[in-house]
């Protein structure tokens, strides 16, 4: 029983903080609008990060910088992350793959989801546009369209609606209009209309002075590691051990008489079955009304349900993830039983490594967590000159739950203005 107690201690002692746990404080600060504090926190995470998480953390920092109005810094971070994520796209790291199987899936370098890559280009476009670099924004628009085509064309017809990113298309369409490319804008609006009927403008008028406001609402879902941990040991003709199930306060002990025939060593077997769970985040804001120059203009409409996209991506990948988790559990059990059944040094080494790696097993909870749950928009004709705009948010029952910062913008006489409220 002493060995069982040691195993239990091992299980409790070696668990490392997951990505979601590490990002919790930054997320709270960011979604609370405390950008400077969020940046200070994420700077530390970036400097302490391993190469496996580095570029994901750059995405997070780039997003916070964008929200804070640090457009140059946002561009540097997002471009560095995008460059690496595209470089490793469709490639395999042999060492990373082996480490992921032997230790846990967080040992591999983060490879972002396709919709996340599209959001990188979208935010880069916004960063260039908001800092006043039209040419740079048009280049990002071109990149964005290329990535959208690559992403959507690679999907089966039935999945296209779930995995498309209408926000990115709308953003691209508005920039096409600003550049005077009405046909290109129309193509994107038609694609949006197929996804969300009635959302796109009925006609494209590149000369119309319009304000287009994009606002982010809620938090993207996060992944949490769900771990079923346990220990089995032969005790005479019986099988004894414990399970530590997710959500339970104490390990569940068990005693199975008559199962002593199982091929278990006296040192027992430590096992972990870990998989990620996708958790939707609590929503305070359920909508917003646009206020321009102190007058209420109307209610924002949802343009992109990124929460639903993230959940759909998670559900699509859950099957393979569970198979990989089961394979890891099997390998570590094999190391402790079949390979670790001798008294020689190698056998002992496999037994110890198998136990250690079982203890450190955890699910890969990495995802871009500073993404919103939804992106809403409002579009209206607007006279030239300087204006202020803000959003008054409301909750599920329509009750007011606060306002965005008031943003000043300039409406030129011959163009459209884009305002982004994270």
């Amino acid at each position: 029983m002493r060995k069982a107690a040691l195993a239990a201690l091992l299980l409790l002692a070696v668990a490392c903080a997951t990505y979601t746990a590490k990002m919790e404080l930054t997320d709270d600060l960011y979604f609370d609008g405390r950008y400077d504090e969020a940046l200070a926190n994420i700077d530390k995470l970036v400097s302490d990060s391993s190469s496996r998480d580095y570029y994901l953390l750059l995405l997070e920092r780039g997003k916070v910088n964008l929200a804070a109005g640090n457009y140059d810094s946002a561009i540097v971070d997002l471009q560095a992350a995008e460059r690496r994520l595209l470089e490793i796209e469709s490639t395999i790291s042999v060492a990373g793959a082996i480490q992921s199987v032997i230790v846990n899936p967080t040992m591999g370098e983060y490879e972002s989801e396709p919709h996340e890559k599209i959001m990188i280009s979208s935010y880069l476009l916004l960063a260039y546009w908001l800092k006043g670099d039209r040419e740079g924004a048009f280049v990002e628009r071109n990149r964005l369209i290329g990535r959208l085509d690559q992403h959507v064309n690679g999907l089966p017809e039935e999945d296209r609606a779930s995995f498309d990113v209408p926000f990115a298309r709308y953003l691209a369409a508005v920039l096409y209009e600003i550049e005077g490319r009405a046909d290109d804008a129309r193509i994107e609006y038609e694609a949006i209309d197929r996804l969300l009927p009635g959302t796109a403008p009925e006609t494209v008028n590149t000369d119309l002075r319009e304000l287009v406001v994009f606002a982010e609402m809620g938090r993207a879902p996060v992944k949490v590691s769900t771990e079923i941990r346990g220990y089995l040991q032969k005790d005479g003709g019986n099988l004894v051990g414990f399970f530590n199930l997710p959500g339970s306060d104490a390990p569940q002990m068990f005693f199975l008489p008559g199962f002593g025939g199982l091929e278990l060593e006296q040192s027992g077997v430590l096992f972990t079955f870990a998989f990620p769970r996708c958790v939707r985040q609590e929503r305070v804001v359920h909508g917003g009304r646009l206020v321009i120059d102190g007058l209420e203009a109307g209610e924002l409409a949802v343009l992109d349900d990124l929460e639903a996209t993230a959940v759909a991506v998670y559900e699509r990948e859950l099957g393979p993830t569970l198979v990989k988790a089961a394979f890891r559990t099997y390998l570590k059990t094999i190391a402790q039983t079949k390979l670790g059944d001798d008294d020689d040094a190698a056998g002992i080494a496999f037994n110890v490594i198998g136990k250690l790696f079982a203890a450190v097993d955890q699910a890969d909870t990495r995802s871009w967590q500073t993404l919103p749950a939804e992106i809403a928009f409002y579009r209206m004709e607007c006279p030239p000159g300087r204006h202020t705009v803000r959003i008054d948010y409301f909750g599920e029952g329509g009750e007011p739950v606060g306002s965005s910062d008031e943003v000043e913008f300039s409406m030129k006489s011959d163009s459209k203005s884009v305002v982004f409220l994270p």
Partner: protein
Amino acid sequence: MKKLLIPVLCLVVLAACGGPATKEIDIATDTAEDADFSSADLATIMEGMMPSIAESGFLMQYKAEHGGQKPVMLLAKELKNETDEHINTRLILEKMRTRMINEGFADFVDDQAFDMALEQLNLQATDLYDNTKAAQIGNFVGAKYVLRGTISNIRKVEGRQNYNYINVTLNIFEVETLLIKWTDEVEFKRVSTKSSTR
């Protein structure tokens, strides 16, 4: 089984080590690193454009009509970038300008030196300078032609393969008439394939 697994585990644990290495690259024989626009493409563009300008009737006709004088040109602020890459397109135009001046095709006014020149002229007009030797105002030369153009691309990414078609079109237009006096294009397409492992 164990004898095989131990070295495999050791290989996994031991990360590859290596220091940075620096090597000089000959620009004349430089080749593109991948499908994106690269420094090697500048040479390709020059190789395509310079003979075209040299052989164009426009330059010869101008010299014939103006007693052997070269035309005065101006660079557009930048090449219009319609690609999906952030490219320093000014570099292409400046490289063209350098070659055209050095090969005696045209004179150029410096589009970026105006403020600096104005500042100098104003300073030299003060008593701080010897007025007999100071640069005189009223001698700026206006450009009769502007060199401008567009760079565009069509990219297709399929798995690990990246196909990129790039087109660079340059033209010289006459300021007075807006007539295009010379135009040509250089186009190339290449595919890069990423290794399946990293």
